[in-house]
Every structure is written in C-alpha cells, then in structure tokens.
C-alpha cells in the first residue's frame, strides 16, 4: 500500500528517500541519476524505487469524498 520501509533483499532503508525520488521523477529527471545521487547503488534496492505503486493514493480519495459528503449532510440538517 505504501512504500516498503526496507529493501526486501538487503534490508537497506529506502522509504525515507522515496518521496524525493517521486518528486524528482515528476520534474523530468532521469530515474537512474536520481537513485545514484540518493546513494541507492544495488539493483535490489533500485527495483523497489522503480516498481513501487502506492495504492494508498487510490484508496484515500474515497475517504476524503466520504468526509466531504458527511459535512454536506451535516450542513443540510443544520
């Protein structure tokens, strides 16, 4: 659902660098160069960055909409 905290294979901490990676990829940088600059050298850790899909981002909007609807109903009752 969220980024894995550590690399599955070697155990290096990867989660703290993921948000920087995502924002730099979005700004058009080369993913390989970003990973080099973040100190992610082994291919086991690099595949975590390349292959992670944060499905929590697809679930959260449902709860945001639910909350919005709840407050609409509340204001209609008031």
């Amino acid at each position, binding site marked *: *659902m*969220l*980024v894995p*905290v*550590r*690399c599955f294979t*070697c*155990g*290096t*901490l990867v*989660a*703290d*660098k*993921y*948000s920087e990676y995502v924002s730099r990829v979005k700004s058009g940088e080369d993913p390989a160069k970003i990973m080099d600059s973040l100190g992610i050298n*082994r291919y086991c850790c690099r595949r975590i960055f390349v292959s992670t899909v944060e499905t*929590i*981002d697809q*679930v*959260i909007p449902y*709860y*945001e909409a639910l*909350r919005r609807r709840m407050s609409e109903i509340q204001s209609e009752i008031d």
Partner: protein
Amino acid sequence: MVQAPSLDVVSKTNDRIVLRFNNVPRQYVNAIRRISISEVPTLAIDDVVMMENSSVMHDEAIAHRLGLIPLRTDLNRFVLPQDCDCNNSLGCSKCRVLLILDSEANDKTKLVTSGELVSEDDVVKPVSSDIPIIILAPSQKLKFEAYARLGLGSIHAKWQPTTCSIVTDGTEQNQSILTVETTGALTAEETIDAAIQRLNSKVKTFTDTVASLQVP
C-alpha cells in the same frame, strides 16, 4: 612459512566499513561477517499496543512497518530481554524503550512519518525522521504505544544491524576483504567491534568446555 597476520582499514564511513585481512584464515573473517549479521543485537519495535486506528491499514500491517524502522542503538545501556533481571513481562528501562505516537488528520489528508514517534529515551530514535508510517484521510486517527527491545538477526531480520556484508578475495594471496554496511542502528565500526567481542567469548566458552570434558 607462516606469515604474520595483519589488518588494515581500506575505507570507513558511519554506515560502511571495508577491512583488508592479510594472512588471516578465511574462516575467521567469515565468522566475523556471520556474527555481525545474526548475533549482534540492535533495538527494534517488538510490541505495539494499538489504542486507536481508523486508518486504511490493519493494525498488523502498521506494526510490521514500525518493526522495520531502524532505531539508533546504544549497546552499553541495554540488555537482551532474556538476560535482564527485571522478571517483568513488559520489561524495565534496561531492556525496553517506549515510543508513542498520537496523530490525527483534521481537515486535510496527512502523511504520518517516523519523525512523529516520541521516544522516552534521548538516544533511541528512528535513524531517519522521513520514513512514512501511514497516510491518514480527514478525521482518521492513529494512536499507539510501541515497545522497542533488543533482539538478534537470527530471530527476525528487523534486528539485523547489517544490510550487505560480504567477504571477497584480495589482490594478493591469503588476503580477504570484509565489507560491512549497516542500517544506521549501529555504526559499521560498532558492529564489527561487537561481532569480534562475541566471537571471542564464543571461542572462550568452547575452549573452556573442551578443557572441562572428562575423558573416561
């Protein structure tokens, strides 16, 4: 002819050390490597008491993420729970550290990171404050108490101080190169130091046991 064993440090940073062993048996170098992986203790979150969790992730999934967060460890101040004399299932200040988190998203979606964990100890803290724990949607809440304990990598990988540790051939004969990388819970130097101490005590126990054996 047996040449004198020697050791030099090729490179050293906080989380990575490269040592070159000359004329040291490969088995001895490998023993140091194996002990640094599985028998040097570190602190990791082991017990989580969930007070409130209305997030999209299950209690167990969050607890698993918490366990994997590397915590800075001071080996001199803590003992393994089974070696502690407190006889308390919750532990005492020598064998556990309490970390708490209380977070709520009010009007906006919020990312909860390891920086929000409050530790009762000044040293024992997550090595990075940017590790995402959960994303909370508006009005969701997460509140828990977590107990960190010392443990061994042979029990669970979350207690492993090392990430990548390897022994390779050197350029000359009878040369071994030991590379140890750590998660940040211990520095590479502390890990090697603790591993060598552990190896020495194992060798001593073995020698004493052999010496005490009675030959019928």
